[in-house]
């Protein structure tokens, strides 16, 4: 980037808007950081703003669940140098994608008597629709990767995001392995690092909120869960709470109880 301040656009789709808050209160240095960049579009932060770009960076929050969002994404892609999904919803589908484990009409009918006004499509991550230039993972998105992103942007280098498993951070924290020692169904071995092994550090098994790490081996972990005594339904639930539509965790998302019935 040159001397001009980087122009940033923030777009929100189906999500809780928590990542936008993480961004706005970035490292408690809201002023210093936000002064170094030019946020040209972010409706939750400020009124006005230009949706049409051009942007140096477009940050996308939330799962894509309606077709106008997909159409807007393509437009955003064409006017942005970088497009970066922020938070699990945009990165891997996150919690809103749990609905993909059910039939669409069934889910809609449980909520609305009148579904004629609903135009919801299957929930998918941003990279299912457009090419992206990196991911800031986490639910809510992690401080470390966010810091890396902002400094990279200001220095004009490519960000180096974490892509190891939670286990790596868990060792650094000095925790006892809750999977091996206590037999808890911990998602740490297949989940992307970034949280600092928050759950194992608080006496709890990781539930995978950061989404899949790239080289995960879900089949091995799913088998291990079965040996621990989890039912096939329980294993399926562990692997579908975050990242239902991801190829990395696909081997853990087998509906084994239905396979047995066939």
């Amino acid at each position, binding site marked *: 980037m040159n001397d001009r301040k980087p122009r940033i656009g923030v777009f*929100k789709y*189906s*999500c*809780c*808007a*928590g*990542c*936008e*808050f*993480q961004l*706005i*209160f970035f490292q*408690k240095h*809201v*002023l210093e950081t936000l*002064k170094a960049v030019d*946020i040209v579009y972010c*409706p*939750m*932060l*400020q*009124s*006005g*703003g230009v*949706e049409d770009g051009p942007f140096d960076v477009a940050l996308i929050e939330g799962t894509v*669940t*309606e077709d106008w*969002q997909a159409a807007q994404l393509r437009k955003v892609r064409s006017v942005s140098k970088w497009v970066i999904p922020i938070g699990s919803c945009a990165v891997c589908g*996150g*919690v*809103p994608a*749990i*609905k993909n*484990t*059910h039939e669409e009409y*069934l*889910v*809609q009918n*449980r*909520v*609305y*008597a*009148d579904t004629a*006004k*609903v135009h*919801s499509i299957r929930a998918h991550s941003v990279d299912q629709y457009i090419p992206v230039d990196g991911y800031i993972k986490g*639910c*809510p998105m992690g401080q470390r990767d966010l810091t890396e992103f902002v400094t990279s942007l200001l220095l004009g280098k490519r960000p180096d995001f974490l892509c190891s498993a939670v286990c790596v951070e868990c060792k650094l924290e000095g925790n006892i392995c809750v999977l091996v020692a206590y037999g808890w169904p911990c998602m740490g071995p297949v989940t992307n690092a970034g949280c600092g092994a*928050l*759950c194992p*550090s*608080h*006496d*709890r098994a990781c*539930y995978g*909120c950061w989404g899949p790490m790239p080289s995960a081996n879900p089949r091995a972990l799913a088998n291990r869960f079965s040996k621990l005594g989890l039912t096939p*339904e*329980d294993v399926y*639930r562990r692997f579908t*709470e975050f990242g239902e539509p991801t190829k990395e965790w696909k081997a853990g998302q087998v509906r084994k109880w239905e396979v047995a019935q066939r």
Partner: protein
Amino acid sequence: MESRTGEEVGSRTKVEVNYFARVEGETALVVELDGEAFVQLRIFEPPRFFEGFLVGRKYDEVGDIVSRICGICPVSHMITAIQAVERATGIEVSDQTVTLRRLLCLSQIVASHLVHLYMLAMPDYYGCPGIVDMQERFGDRVQRLIRMKDVVNELTGIIGGRALHPVTVLPGGFTAIPKQQAFDDILEKLRSIQPGAAQVVHDVADFKVPDFHAACEHLALDVEHGYAINGGTIVSDKGLAVEIDQYDEHFHETEVPYAFAKKSVVGDQTMIRVGALARLNTKFDKLQDRTKSLAEEIGFSPPDDNPFHNNLAQSLEVVDGIEQCIQILEAVSFEDEELFARPEAGEGGAMTEAPRGLLYHWYKIDPLGVVEEANIVTPTSHNFLVIERDLKELVVQRRDLDPPTLRLLCEQLVRAYDPCFSCSVH
């Protein structure tokens, strides 16, 4: 997408906001002033179907999943859901758990109010598009927000593991209890922001709001002793008293074709209002003495039916919430506890005071601990009807104003309610 001016077409005056800025979630507002006024809050936040996909999930996942309904009040959704699950499955919790949950909720209410007051509402009153532009002229206020939000978030984080989407809260209790040293440190910090909290009240009292009155019934939770947050009886300033278990008999939700949020009404469409103003209107006497004297200083006294004063009520709750946290931390010491939960089949609901008002969760759980049915009613659903009614009265009273001023006034009114459209379309 956003057009900054109200447009006039012939004799037809229109105020149209295509994408409402500085609120949580996505909504459009349409006001037409031709003959009888017409107001619609078109909440187009895409539905996420939480009540649909919670079916089939395990009872101990529910809290983690529903906290993702809202990025400003995740703790409220989490605690309400977990209390509802506990009610349904017969899981009991210790007094310490109840106290820790109260601390979590109080700290989150204060943080949420601060964000709303400074980041979402305040720019309107100083002609700024957002908080970034307020920095030059009002740097001290922005600093106050950051400092105070930081401390109360830290308290949430100490107990919950992190402030946004906590991880230690499960049915039956907490997975880990923080060390006493952490509580002692945060107690010091809370004391240090007390003067700032009083200043918040004065900052908000500086807002120039119209003298506008819109009568309705104010609903809040109440208990015999103390300021009810995580349970109690639903009471109103008009004499309503309903137990939470009887919620479904008195309240019902209706769908509208132009919004994905539902409207929640009591009985035959009584105008109800929930939130900070409603809480102060129903249980002002339960506030701390310090808060009451501050209220007197700025001239706030219930009953107050000016919806713009919800901002004032929130600022008073900031002072009160911090004071309450300090009192709890001074009086109680916490010990490690075993987390134990054995769920049975059943159904049950719980209600808490979220920052924006009454939040209700209800679940039916099967013998294996799997959710069979779920129902969630958010504060903004309870307020939906009254927001539209107030807007209508406001534009009728002020129809002579020029369109940009009227538009700003409409936006200020909606923001004063601190609506959360993400929550309302869950």
